[in-house]
């Protein structure tokens, strides 16, 4: 593994070890015109090595348009975080990453995996109360840059 330090690997391994449920990362790619797809693949490939609860499924935007449409993805590289409920049914967490998840986005990706895999949410009760009031589709785009 090239990208994560040994200390980071150990830390992640420990964090993922306590994941109650498996998490699937749908990695949307395209063969041409995606400069950061190889880098994204490299980053994502490190994760299943640290936990058998994390797997990566590659989806080609051009070849698998149904899946792309299902997840509302029209650019690459993109990642959709998919969880499993207690009966093993897959469900979309509606958490997405556009672009190679480096720097702060990688931290967010790890947090998303922990959340969707069943670790405790970081939301306060008040936050939850406020969020529950949203009853129409809402999109949130958070722009970051690689640190």
């Amino acid at each position, binding site marked *: 593994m090239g990208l994560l330090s040994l200390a980071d690997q150990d830390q992640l391994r420990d964090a993922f070890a306590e994941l109650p449920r498996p998490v699937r990362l749908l990695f949307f790619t395209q063969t041409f015109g995606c*400069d*950061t797809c190889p880098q994204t693949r490299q980053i994502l490939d490190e994760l299943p090595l640290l936990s058998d609860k994390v797997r990566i499924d590659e989806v080609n935007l051009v070849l698998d348009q149904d899946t792309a449409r299902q997840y*509302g993805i029209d*650019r690459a590289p993109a990642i959709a975080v998919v969880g499993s409920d207690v009966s093993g049914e897959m469900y979309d*967490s*509606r*958490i*997405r*990453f*556009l*672009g*190679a*998840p*480096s720097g*702060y*986005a990688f931290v*967010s*990706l790890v947090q*998303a995996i922990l*959340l*969707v895999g069943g670790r405790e*949410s*970081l*939301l*306060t009760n*008040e*936050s*939850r*109360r*406020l*969020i*529950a*009031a*949203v*009853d*129409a*589709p*809402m*999109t*949130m*785009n*958070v*722009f*970051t*840059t*690689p640190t």
Partner: protein
Amino acid sequence: MAFANPHITATAVEATEFPDLARKYRVTGVPKTVVNEEVEILGALPQEAFVVQAIAQFTNGDQRSTQEGARDKEKEPSN
């Protein structure tokens, strides 16, 4: 937030890889959050302040804490 409410989809966008999106949403500094293509939040806020700012425009009236709500009820004149 996306995980907590099925109506919400949250996307982290790497601005340098998608300059057209950065331009479209006038991203000049990060982090920048855009909610429903309208509400913009610059920088990182404490969690609850962030949630309030993100959703205030899209949910009806009662964004006050339950404490404030109770206090206001006491002030209402009884007819």
